């Protein structure tokens, strides 16, 4: 199988999260992932796009969220770019620390790290932050 890619651009509103998930699952299914295998992809796309919409672009609908999906024989790769100010991932509090257990927010990155095999963040040279997530086949 050769590598296949697709890109999606969506406005920064909550409805875009479900749209991104639907498109990602369609792409993953066509790339040969079973329904059970798409669950981690579903979760990672949902959490990353939610972060981009809410925390990156601050629900500013004039800013887009760019999602790139790529599938090869060995990997399924998801990149999500926002156009926000950026953040230091190491400064995100650990939600499993006892003092954070009863907080309502802050578990999305934990889920992404749990469900994907590799996760990295970088500043896009033309602005914004990109999270790149890889699931091994």
């Amino acid at each position, binding site marked *: 199988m050769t590598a296949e890619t697709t890109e999606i651009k969506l406005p920064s509103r909550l409805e875009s999260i479900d749209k991104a998930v639907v498109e990602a699952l369609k792409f993953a299914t066509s790339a040969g992932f079973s329904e059970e295998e798409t669950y981690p992809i579903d979760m990672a796309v949902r959490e990353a796009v*939610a972060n981009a919409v809410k925390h990156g672009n601050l629900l500013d609908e004039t800013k887009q969220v760019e999602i790139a999906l790529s599938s090869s024989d060995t990997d399924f790769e998801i990149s999500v770019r926002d156009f926000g100010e950026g953040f230091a991932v190491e400064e995100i509090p650990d939600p499993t620390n006892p003092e954070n*257990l009863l907080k309502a*927010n802050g*578990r999305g990155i934990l889920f992404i790290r749990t469900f994907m095999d590799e996760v990295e963040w970088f500043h896009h040279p033309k602005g914004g932050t990109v999270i790149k997530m890889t699931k091994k086949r």
Partner: protein
Amino acid sequence: MAELNISERQAGDITILDMDGKVTIGEGSVALRSTIRRLLGEGKSKILLNLGQVGYVDSSGIGELVSSFTAVNKEGGTLKLLNLTQKIQDLLAITKLLTVFDTFDNEGDALSSYQ
């Protein structure tokens, strides 16, 4: 169809919420929040969430379960969880919230635990 349907039953002074659908960012989380607020407003603070038909929860949904738990506690009540699917059980384990919530896989046992 709504993302999350919640139907309500009473067992004595315990309110059981049978939830069916997804508890995710947006509609599902809001539906749970407004139901819990309404129950607390009606003085119903012994609440059992039946999650047996909840197939999907994201981090926002987990956050809403935590917010519900703390809101009910604040009113002197108790919120417990019934019939966790494997996926929800895994998410609660990852987040270490199994140490926070009382969870049951049998409704009778859950109801007895409020006594």
